[in-house]
């Protein structure tokens, strides 16, 4: 009997184990080892380069900045929007959540393309605003930093709505009524009760949005190819076929980015655990 269980288990686990080891664990370990390698000796030199070389350091700063801006704008819009959704009749709520779900699939190259059609140098709105003599769009350049933030914000909003919408269920209607009865203004209610309740969910969502923007590659790549100086694009350029490619430095940057992402996810997990505890 014991024998039989073992055979079954081995056969059932083997293919999974082989695939995970071959395509997840070995490449990750290989990458980490590679990032410490310099002329057949182990050293920190690539990490030092990544963090002190002005070019790469600027890339990291740019990535942090763009992720910060797009997540902040995205979360503020989603915070208001998802609250409004909770105030709707059930039917509209379902429609809006389905719609957010649908648009959350609209990212990467198709999204960048849609923005090029709308706001690119010969985009529909760009031409139209020239025709009408509007000046709002003439100062906007899709291929600049503000353009990149605008496109990033688009893919952050549906994701943030999907994550924030459930946290509002933690605020019970009776709390609002009792607060109002005790003479609290809506502002006071939100400041003292509402916000503290949704705060962990808010912070957790923010960390996911931040990580989402840090790792995004396709959107920026589709907009201007390799010319933005952000971390994912730099990593891609360092490891894929450029004449002067430096794979070790690419590995070091990849490890730095990977650690940032894991940190953000870990933070979200901790915050969400708190939300779930509060909801119970």
């Amino acid at each position, binding site marked *: 009997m014991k024998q039989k269980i073992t055979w079954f288990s081995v056969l*059932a686990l083997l293919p999974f184990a082989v695939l995970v080891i071959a395509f*997840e664990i070995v490449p990750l370990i*290989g990458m980490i080892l590679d990032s410490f390698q310099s002329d057949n000796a182990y050293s920190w030199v690539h990490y030092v380069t990544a963090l002190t070389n002005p070019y790469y350091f600027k890339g990291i700063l740019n990535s942090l900045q763009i992720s910060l801006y797009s997540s902040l704008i995205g979360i503020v819009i989603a915070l208001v929007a998802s609250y409004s959704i909770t105030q709707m009749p059930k039917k509209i709520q379902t429609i809006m959540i389905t719609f957010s779900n649908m648009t959350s699939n609209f990212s990467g190259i198709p999204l960048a393309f849609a923005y090029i059609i709308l706001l690119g140098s010969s985009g529909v709105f760009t031409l139209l605003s020239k025709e009408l003599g509007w000046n709002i769009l003439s100062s906007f350049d899709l291929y600049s930093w503000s353009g990149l933030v605008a496109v990033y914000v688009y893919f952050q909003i549906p994701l943030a709505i999907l994550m924030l919408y459930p946290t509002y269920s933690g605020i019970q209607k009776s709390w609002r009524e009792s607060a109002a009865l005790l003479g609290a203004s809506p502002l006071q209610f939100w400041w003292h009760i509402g916000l503290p309740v949704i705060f962990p969910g808010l912070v957790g969502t923010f960390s996911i949005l931040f990580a989402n923007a840090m790792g995004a590659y396709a959107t920026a790549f589709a907009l201007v190819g390799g010319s933005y100086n952000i971390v994912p694009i730099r990593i891609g350029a360092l490891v894929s076929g450029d004449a002067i490619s430096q794979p070790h430095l690419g590995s070091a940057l990849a490890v730095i980015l990977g650690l940032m992402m894991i940190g953000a996810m870990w933070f979200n997990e901790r915050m969400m655990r708190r939300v779930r505890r509060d909801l119970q």
Partner: protein
Amino acid sequence: MRKGSIHYLVIFVVGMYLFLPLAATFLYSISNTWANTILPSDFTLSWYQELFSDQRFILAMGRTLLICILALFVSMITMVMAVFTITVYFPKWERFIQALVMLPYAIPGVVAAVGLIKMYSSKPIVLTGTVWIIVGAYYVLILPYMYQGIRNSLRTIDVKRLIEAAEILGASKWIAFLKVIVPNIIPGILVSSLLSLSILFGEFVLANILVGGHFETIQIYLMKRLKENGHLSSAVVITYFVIVLISSLVMLKLGSRLQNGKTKEKVS
């Protein structure tokens, strides 16, 4: 009443903001020319006609389907067996396995690509530029979603008792697994498979870095066509989006039917 209308306004504005790029892409794909007017002036289906008679597009679509389905198929079989075995016989390992399969969720595509290139672009094993490396990479990419789906559906049934009952009735472990456990969790597996499929369909980074020049997937095709013809590219985007939409609608229907089924069981 005035308070309520503010919420309608907010939802309308945000909804329009999210809807506009999609609608514009759609209009662009069915218009001849579109410049200097709010709406395009004359409509045509010729871009779709051109697209569907383009050999390169058909091939790219075929390649994408091939690698996605291959990765999904392998994932389904190996994951169901593994997750089942771990939950039933090695519950102690669960935390470890969970950390392992959730890791790809935190690792961005470009980072995963670096490791894969490092390991498989030089001897002894050269896989870059072949189908195998992308199928392997996609297998890892969908691990978190497949794991969650399978784990959740296993939780809804009493696996241990079902297996015991089947064994008492004379079935071997394999038979019990295939004929009792698998049919019970198939709907849950289908939902996570469709989710994985729509993720793989939109994947660009891994495909571009790992097999870029050798193997043109639909996303790479789109990227290359972007600069040539805007109307044609928007037809590609819409076609791609319709496919993702259909699969997520099926997913939603399937998911809600599952939940209905569950609540009904509880009632009876």
